[in-house]
């Protein structure tokens, strides 16, 4: 369309954009050069460590899971210890479809996993998100425990405690097969899914919707007062977050070719929470940093010195909670700012 704009209006618009605050706001969602680094590192990892691709795959799935939690917890401030409910729902959706030979095409299975998790997220969010604090924490834990008990009891379909082993997943696009011994396909597949989901989350948090979520986290009363539909926003956010966690769970089931009750464990929910807070919540890349730091330490330390690992992790968590409220990225940011201040002073 070609609309005539008067020179005065043009000048006014230019002046608005020239304002420093306006410039910051306009540029906020632009990509920065360092945002390419994690992806370059992920591709580099593929070529550099072919023997560790199974570990890399686990890492990518954990990043996606932590990212989904970041949306609910970091951006909307929904404090939950039951996020594994959605991870497990996605995993069991993929597992049940594949094990009973109903549907094995991987990409559409992932979509079904997302759908199943979204349904659970929407239904539970609709009732749970009226509460806050300890009550919300308990309700999320109980919902997850309920699903786990359900999966345990429906032994005939879910295999109960033993889970569903040897899932036959069809090749991607009918070409690329999952080979249980070599994780090349799994790794690249997980990386592609993570990239797509990440772009979605990134777009979402910089959108007006994402801004209103941050508003709800920062000042609930004020958001009510300005007429924001708080409950609806929270439920929508919770549902999207659940769908992403479901995708992570579905990926986990597909790439490992099994599902068991650990997908719905409190352990898993607590670990992903720790990972997110360790990395720094509410900042997109906290999920990446936290997952890398946690899993690398766990992978190389926990198997040799399990007790020392637990002690070290405990000390680290206590120190982060006491002194660095925003995780590893928060510490980095603080150091960067101090460095910048010193440079500006000199």
């Amino acid at each position, binding site marked *: 369309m070609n609309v005539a704009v008067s020179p005065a209006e043009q000048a006014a618009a230019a002046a608005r954009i020239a304002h420093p605050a306006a410039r910051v706001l306009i540029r906020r969602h632009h990509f920065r050069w360092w945002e390419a680094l994690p992806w370059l590192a992920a591709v580099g990892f593929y070529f550099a460590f072919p023997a560790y691709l199974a570990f890399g795959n686990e890492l990518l799935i954990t990043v996606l899971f932590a990212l989904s939690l970041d949306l609910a917890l970091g951006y909307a401030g929904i404090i939950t210890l039951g996020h594994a409910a959605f991870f497990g729902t996605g995993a069991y959706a993929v597992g049940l479809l594949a094990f009973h030979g109903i549907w094995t095409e991987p990409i559409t299975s992932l979509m079904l996993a997302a759908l199943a998790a979204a349904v659970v997220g929407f239904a539970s969010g609709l009732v749970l998100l009226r509460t806050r604090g300890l009550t919300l924490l308990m309700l999320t834990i109980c919902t997850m425990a309920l699903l786990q008990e359900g999966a345990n009891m429906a032994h005939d379909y879910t295999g109960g405690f033993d889970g569903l082993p040897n899932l036959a997943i069809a090749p991607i696009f009918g070409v690329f097969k999952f080979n249980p011994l070599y994780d090349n396909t799994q790794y690249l597949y997980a990386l592609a899914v993570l990239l797509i989901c990440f772009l979605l989350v990134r777009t979402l948090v910089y959108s007006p919707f994402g801004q209103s979520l941050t508003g709800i986290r920062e000042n609930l009363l004020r958001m009510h007062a300005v007429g924001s539909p708080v409950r609806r926003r929270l439920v929508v956010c919770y549902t999207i977050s659940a769908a992403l966690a479901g995708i992570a769970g579905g990926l986990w089931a597909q790439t490992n070719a099994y599902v068991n009750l650990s997908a719905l464990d409190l352990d898993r929910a607590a670990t992903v929470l720790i990972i997110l807070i360790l990395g720094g919540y509410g900042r997109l890349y906290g999920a990446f940093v936290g997952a890398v730091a946690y899993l690398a330490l766990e992978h190389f330390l926990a198997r040799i010195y399990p007790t020392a690992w*637990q002690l070290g992790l405990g000390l680290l968590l*206590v120190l982060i909670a006491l002194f660095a409220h925003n995780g590893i990225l928060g510490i980095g940011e603080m150091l960067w700012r101090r460095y910048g201040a010193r440079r500006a002073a000199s």
Partner: protein
Amino acid sequence: MGPAGPLVIENIDFAGILLGGLSAGTVLFIVSVGLSITMGLMGFVNLAHGAFAMFGGYVIVLAMNRAHVGFAAALAIGFFATAALSAVLERLLYRRLYRANELDQVLFTIGLIFIFIAAIVIVVGPESQLLTLPPALRGQVNLGFTHYRAYSVFLIVVGFLIVTGIWLAVERTRIGAQIRATVDNRRMAESLGINVDRLFTITFAFGSGMAALGGGLGAEFLGLDPQYPLKYLVYFLIVVSVGGLGSVVGVYYAALLLGVLDFTLKLYVPKGGTMFIYVLTILILLWRPQGLFGRKET
């Protein structure tokens, strides 16, 4: 092993089930009551409460098994050792996080749990510990209408004495009045000259000491091993949130309810019986988000 099937269930009569459930619930109450008080008073999400119960339980059991201290003396040692440790931790660490957001509190207390678990594994070892009951509490006792394990009856009586004692302390003593005033309105309480900091430390230490008693008294029922604080975390939290934060009587009823339900369900519905407990918790919390006996948030 007796004959399988309905015969076994017929042998365990109604009174037996009730007493077993009540003693289980009493243990849950003794461990959780401190958590409820401190959460109600300070609004602090202390997931590490079970770690104090474990610490106290270990002190009590090891004092009896290795140092051959008497049962009552061991309980006292466990209570005071745990209270002292928790008072130190409260002064040094917890205090800094009272005003922090819930996430930092959750992270901090999960970290503490890991430290406690690792410390116990390193110092004592990963195997579970057994409580040796004093001779007076072994065997059966005649209650008139039925015979039952003496120790279970002892637990129920102790639990009743504790809830009565704490209730009287909160309702009738000076420090209890100060606690109630602080729960209602912290700023006003401070303005009236109540030393809120000291009050926090005292209640925190007392609550942890009670948890220690629960850890020791319940060792033969809940077991005692390094994974204790994680294994029972959800149960303690259910009791506290269903009972209502800060309500001693509420926690007592919630714990007894959970104990009886759990005991009965494990007997009759061994598979999936716990599902009912989760459903019930969800329904109660949706009906009354502040818990059965909690006060509405203002």
